[in-house]
């Protein structure tokens, strides 16, 4: 019996202690007409050997592609240490650290993570994860609406130059609470979200302004001006940031005169494999004054009976298991293990290592954009300064081009045509520190050939 340790003797002894003659009797409070005869439509058990063979065969079906896509999920080097340690049973198979004394490992890791994120964002506090970057942004919107005591507005400005999937998720999760998202256009020339466009949204007050740095197109926004505009209009400034980029970019806590109020984003670039989309982890940081509105778990440093330092979940009164319907969020299970990986990852890289990664990604993407733009008809969509992604317009339908690239083993970029028809045909490309000059040259060569055949 897979994973069930009971011997026939055990079962007999246990039933005798309970005082019933068969296990089935233990289900006698279930109305008899509801009892199942047996499960159907489920295959028979396989041995580990057979499952291994099955999964290896299926994994082999999924062809590895030379990856030039970012668009919210980035292929970075993950040190071997990261998952060899994060995968240790004591981290991997522990529960949420409710019993603090028996969970000092996980709790200290989470406190260290919070500290690292506070340092990266230059904000005061961080939580211990949300599901992913998109749901974190949605939670940030909900939090901002709760936390903003200057206005009763439930309107939030959201840039069009923000990940389309994120915008969808934010809508799913905030609309039921009557929050209205007002889309702010980007400047066709620069790809930036102009401060003027905020004003043109035509509202006097709003609960929050989302500022995305870099934005979905990889373009750097004028974060100081956007933040100041938000504060001038009683709105909180929500920063949506890439943690790798923060090694080089001005941190949200220093944006504008007063700094962003909340920063959130996707922690995937910090040691999490692409894994077809998850598990990743959303992070969220904020100023001290808003900490009681933060959703999710928060770890605090405290002392034990002997005065020794220890760690515990804190501010639990915000959470669903205490506050129930009035909680800051319904989140319970989060992405703890991914933060363990992120913490180890950040410890290994340090600020200087993170800077090298960021700068290398920028350089590789710049090289990629240069090489591709040298192909006739390919050119950058925008003039604004970029981080490690670039939107390029194409002289042929992007879907067909991407399909042809896949046939060559290349994942050539994110097709902008569907979400941004005004840019079509166009791709969003990315080259992280993993892409070599040879691979970039290969991409350019193949794209060139494909486009030539389209002419």
């Amino acid at each position: 019996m897979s994973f069930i340790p009971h011997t026939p003797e055990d079962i007999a002894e246990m039933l005798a202690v309970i005082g019933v003659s068969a296990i089935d009797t233990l289900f006698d409070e279930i109305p008899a007409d509801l009892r199942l005869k047996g499960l159907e439509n489920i295959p028979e058990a396989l041995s580990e050997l057979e499952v291994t063979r099955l999964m290896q065969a299926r994994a082999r079906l999924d062809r590895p592609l030379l990856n030039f896509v970012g668009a919210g999920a980035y292929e970075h080097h993950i040190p071997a240490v990261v998952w060899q340690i994060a995968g240790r049973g004591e981290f991997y198979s522990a529960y949420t650290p409710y019993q603090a004394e028996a969970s000092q490992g996980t709790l200290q890791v989470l406190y260290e993570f919070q500290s690292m994120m506070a340092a990266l964002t230059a904000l005061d506090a961080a939580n211990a994860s949300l599901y992913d970057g998109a749901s974190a942004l949605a939670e940030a919107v909900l939090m901002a609406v709760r936390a903003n005591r200057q206005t009763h507005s439930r309107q939030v400005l959201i840039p069009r130059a923000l990940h389309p999937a994120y915008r969808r998720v934010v809508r799913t999760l905030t609309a039921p609470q009557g929050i209205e998202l007002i889309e702010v256009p980007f400047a066709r020339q620069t790809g930036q979200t102009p401060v003027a466009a905020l004003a043109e949204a035509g509202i006097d007050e709003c609960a929050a302004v989302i500022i995305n740095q870099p934005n979905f197109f990889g373009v750097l926004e004028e974060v100081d001006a956007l933040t100041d505009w938000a504060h001038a209009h009683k709105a909180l400034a929500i920063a949506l940031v890439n943690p790798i980029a923060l090694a080089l970019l001005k941190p949200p806590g220093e944006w504008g005169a007063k700094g962003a109020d909340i920063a959130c984003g996707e922690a995937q670039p910090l040691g999490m494999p692409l894994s077809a989309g998850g598990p990743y982890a959303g992070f969220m940081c904020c100023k001290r004054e808003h900490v009681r509105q933060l959703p999710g778990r928060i770890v605090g440093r405290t002392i034990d009976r002997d005065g020794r330092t220890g760690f515990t979940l804190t501010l639990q009164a915000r959470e669903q298991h205490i506050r129930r319907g009035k909680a800051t969020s319904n989140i319970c299970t989060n992405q703890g293990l991914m933060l363990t990986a992120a913490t180890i990852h950040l410890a290994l890289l340090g600020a200087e290592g993170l800077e090298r990664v960021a700068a290398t990604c920028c350089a590789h993407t710049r090289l990629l954009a240069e090489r591709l733009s040298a192909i006739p008809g390919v050119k950058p969509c925008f003039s604004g300064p970029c981080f490690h992604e670039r939107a390029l317009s194409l002289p042929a339908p992007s879907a067909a081009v991407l399909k042809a690239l896949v046939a060559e083993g290349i994942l050539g970029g994110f097709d902008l045509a569907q979400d941004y028809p005004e840019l079509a045909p166009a791709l969003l490309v990315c080259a992280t520190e993993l892409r070599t000059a040879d691979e970039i040259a290969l991409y350019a060569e193949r794209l060139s050939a494909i486009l030539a055949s389209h002419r």
Partner: protein
Amino acid sequence: MLIQERSRPGRRAPAQAPLCAPEPPPIPEHLRRSSRPVLPEVSELEVVRHYTGLSQKNFSIDTQFYPLGSCTMKYNPRACHTLAMLPGFVDRHPLAPEDQGQGLSSCLYELQEILKAVTGMDAISLAPAAGAQGELAGVLMIRAYHHARGDLERTEILIPDAAHGTNPASAAMAGFEVREIPTGPDGDVDLAALRSALGPKTAGIMLTNPSTLGVFERKIQAIAEAIHAAGGLLYYDGANLNGILGQVRPGDMGFDIVHVNLHKTFATPHGGGGPGAGPVGVAAHLAPYLPLPLVERAADGRYRWLTESDRPQSIGRLTAFGGNIGVLLRAYVYARLLGREGLGRVAKFAVLNANYLAARLRAAGFTLAYPERRVSHEFILTLKPEAKAFGVSAMDIAKRLLDYGHHAPTTYFPLLVPECLLIEPTETESKQTLDDFVEAMIAIRREAEQDPELPKNAPHHLPVRRLDEVHAARHLDLAWRSKSSEGDHG
């Protein structure tokens, strides 16, 4: 010691970053960071030693019995981890085309089918990243269903008072008002109270069965009938699915919507807080509202991912990509390892273990909260008699259990029962382990009688003594600050 405190300026783990840094990118000065963030500067060995050491400070399934009620802490098969990390899966970009991901898609499609079979529902979405997100998806579907029928007045969700806190929190997030339904003295929902709460504002009810009181809600069919008659829908909180897996199905009980915690019932690891996965299943009339994405098998046997254009009525997306795929793969492997018979055996042995443990503790003189009821896969002990007799609280006993090498059961939940422990042994623990736990409980009660300071000051043998949670909340210390940055942000 924190990793930050081990740091020394200039120390590195240089193999982990590109060896040659390129020129700094041409970022305009005013967008650039002016000073480096203060992150640890440590060697690779220091990182390994630090985090290996921290890991040893955790209790976990791999090291201890973990009878945490309502959490289903069972063995997480190691093969699930290995196989979910195969390069074809783990290196796949979420935006890679689906025709290059048929292997992954086939696993997810089959997982959907398996979840249909065990829940008795007609359609499944794997999108929710955790149980609470599954709950939210569930109530959003209730909302979408009523709205689609133009039925905009249904603003109330009924929730029994014994429910998990996530239930009312999810209902609130979905914009509903919560109406609490009391529990009767026998542990079942107070049906009269329920009936009197029903009306034109009733959108639905959120129930878990077996309930958090560790008993099976016997009047479930009557409840379903009443709710449906009132025009409401029934949502099943899958947190306790392990107690009925293969024995009875939410779909057959009359539920319209169900979520499943794969990190409980399907043994994916809890990881010190996650990631989990909370797929939702629905009866056919709710299928159009399922969250995206969904995997479909086309007539040609190929798999494809459904999007907004296929499912315009969907409540939408809950995360940027397809949810916690790696967790779903682990659950799939688990389901294949157990197969039909194995999945059908889970609840039997989970319930056997719980009943045995309850019977032994009861025989040893402990007080069950619902002694006249059959125990499901978990049960509640109330330590009120011990608290009264010895002045020792349930929390003291829980902490003392840690010294005996067992993780503590869930304490003070459900809130209805004073000084309670909610105990869930799961099916993967042996009789020996349960016997050890009983002996520990007996020994601790003896200590409480003879030397109450021992449990009151527990734990004694852990890396720290009892931690001061009040101090933590009053003197908020949520992030380490370097001396130099204290001035800036302190």
